[in-house]
């Protein structure tokens, strides 16, 4: 009996070989895409730019052997009506199969963002290869230009920008979060902004040549209405946005010292949270936002001993005021200038008043413009670092 089973297994394996190995794709037959950029060009067509890794540049221990350092990536662009079409044209330019599985960042050119992004995010969600966890960013200027900029520390701009976003210094959003905001009622999408800047920081000339004297960096946040970009928040307002969205952020809040207002004290944010309470006052949506921040004091310019409860309380207060100011500025811009609810106030309203929501959900953004938002900040300094007060004589 067993013998026959083995026979069957053999036949099965042979049959397998006969039919070939369908989905096989050797590692040296693929072009690993690290970043994708999409720009709008004329006639409703889009330009897809991919940053493809050149594996040899990533070989370990090869660099030290001297010789010219190889470029780590190449950027290829192609046009098409849809992304998939553009990808097919790309395939004519790249001798390998395009592999999306390790794409770190999806860079949307400003033009494209303004035209509407719903048409392009679909491909990255629908296809099984691109990961939903890639970062979505809007580039000031073109995405193509952005991708072609090198990085000194990291090998490619995609990796550089991926790491930058992971540092949580600015507002960062992953594709699935972005798409969720697109799909959800009562919230409008926002995405990280990035840009290319000219710098002269590279010390050595070869590095200078490599990066073309340019560098990528985070630059605020792009706000969307539905799927069209409507405007930017700058870096400071982005922080306000993050406070209001309750996003984890790493950053410093600098406030005047309680005893010497011209000297500053810096507090590093450890954790933050927010809570939105929706209310309806005279059928005008009203929101109470409570932001809780905890931080450590890490730098003090003033001379005084801050390890006193009253002084810490003062610092707490000025910290809260600072955060509130930031949040207000972001709110003003979103609410008044652009009229988009990127914070999810609508969701909070929806959760509280599910019946009323049905009437206003279609013109929520207009309604949001009239909404009253009350921001309450509770800031708390927890640790003082390794010093109780700054060394030096207090005259």
């Amino acid at each position, binding site marked *: 009996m067993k013998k026959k*089973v083995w026979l069957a297994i053999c036949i*099965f394996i042979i049959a397998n070989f006969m*039919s070939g190995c*369908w*989905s096989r794709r050797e590692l040296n037959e693929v072009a690993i895409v690290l970043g994708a950029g999409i720009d709008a060009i004329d006639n409703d067509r889009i330009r897809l730019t991919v940053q493809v890794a050149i594996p040899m540049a990533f070989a370990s221990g090869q660099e030290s052997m001297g010789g010219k350092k190889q470029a780590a990536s190449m950027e290829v662009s192609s046009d098409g009506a849809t992304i998939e079409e553009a990808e097919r044209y790309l395939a004519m330019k790249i001798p390998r199969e395009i592999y999306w599985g390790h794409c770190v960042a999806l860079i949307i050119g400003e033009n494209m963002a303004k035209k509407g992004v719903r048409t392009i995010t679909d491909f990255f969600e629908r296809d*099984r290869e691109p*990961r*939903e*966890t890639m970062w979505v960013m809007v580039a000031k200027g073109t995405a193509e230009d952005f991708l072609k900029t090198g990085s000194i520390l990291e090998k490619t701009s995609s990796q550089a920008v991926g790491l930058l976003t992971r540092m949580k210094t600015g507002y960062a959003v*992953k594709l*699935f*979060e972005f*798409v*969720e905001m*697109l*799909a*959800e*009622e009562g919230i409008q999408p926002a995405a990280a902004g990035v840009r290319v800047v000219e710098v002269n920081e590279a010390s050595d000339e070869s590095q200078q040549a490599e990066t073309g004297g340019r560098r990528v960096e985070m630059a605020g946040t792009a706000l969307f209405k539905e799927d069209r970009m409507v405007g930017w928040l700058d870096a400071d307002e982005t922080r306000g946005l993050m406070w209001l969205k309750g996003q*984890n952020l790493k950053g410093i809040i600098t406030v005047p010292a309680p005893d010497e207002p011209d000297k500053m004290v810096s507090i590093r944010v450890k954790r933050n949270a927010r809570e939105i309470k929706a209310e309806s006052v005279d059928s005008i949506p009203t929101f109470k936002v409570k932001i809780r921040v905890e931080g450590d004091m890490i730098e003090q310019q003033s001379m005084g001993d801050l390890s006193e409860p009253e002084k810490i309380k003062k610092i707490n207060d000025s910290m809260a005021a600072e955060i509130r100011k930031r949040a207000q500025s972001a709110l003003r811009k979103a609410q008044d200038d652009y009229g988009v609810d990127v914070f999810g106030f609508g*969701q909070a309203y*929806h*959760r*509280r008043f*599910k019946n009323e929501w049905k009437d206003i959900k279609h013109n929520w953004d207009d309604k949001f413009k009239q909404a009253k938002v009350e921001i309450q900040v509770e800031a708390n300094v927890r640790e003082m670092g390794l010093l109780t007060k700054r060394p030096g004589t207090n005259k």
Partner: protein
Amino acid sequence: MKEEEKLSSVQVFFLALNFFLASAFILMPSAVAATAGRDGWAAILIAAGAGILLSKLYAALCIRFSGRTIILFAQDIAGEIPGKIMGLLFAWFALHLGALVLRNFGDFMVISLMPCTPLIVFNSVIMLIAAMAVYRGLEVLCRFNLMLMPVILVSMAVIIIFCFTIPNFDAAKLLPLFENGFSRVLKTSLIPMTFPFGEGVLFLMIFPNMSNSGDAKKIMAGAIIASAMIIASITAETVAVFGSNAKNFVYSTHSMIRCIELAEIFERTDTLTIVIWILSGLIKISVCLYAFVKGCTQLFALKDYRPIVIPSGIIMTALSILVYENVIEQTEFASKIWPFYSLVFELLLPLMLITLDSVKKVF
């Protein structure tokens, strides 16, 4: 080899648990989200209650006719010819269900794992293994299942726990509750009631092999409760992660796992979870195949079921390719037709038998 294989209650419990979990774990979140929106989890819990009632019915049948399968006692109750027709219908149900599950898994593989490989390859390979398990006997199938169970349960637990770490996770997205009315949730609960829980009717073919068939009710109820908890929590989590976007996914559980990125180690693990689901699905398909084969054996009074395992497997595979032309037909059938079609076998047939028998007993 012994002809009569006796199964312990624990073995049957885990077999039932895996049977309920297998395809529901991947398909259910999107299936209920499509009609019930963010209240899908409630629909599943309600369905579990209904499922327990159904399993009580099955257990009652099992205890009343202990030692005999539905194929045999249908003939006792309804007479030979009508009973045989019922048996044939039942066997068809097992075959059809097996083909549908096989198709589901094949499609899932093609979509999420290897898009270029033809569907028939996955289907026939999975069927080969399922046939191998059935050929070796029910006891081996149960043991195999018992071997897989820790792996499957641990991975499900890991998935459920790690989903909390997705940055987007927010339980508040489950609110507001019952936005579209509770009746909608109730209606939706028909889907999970018939799709994993009612399918337990196939266990009427397995109960007679239990060493202690009095446990049948407890086992089925336990398995339904446990699986409902798991499926409901994963359904709730997909909503907590994707919000209202959850209904747009074909396999939202899978999509959610793709989003887990924990400490740069536990990320991109969706491929590995697919592997675990194959194993889980394998058991479900094997149970269906076993029910069909055993049913045929008893219908035609054969001495041994082994010779017809492989032909039945071939039929099931061919059927699985045949049933749908495309994925759209599948979702259409699964969400609109299946709840009513399967009720015929899951509720009507057993109910009819038990009433007939009760009536007979009275007169």
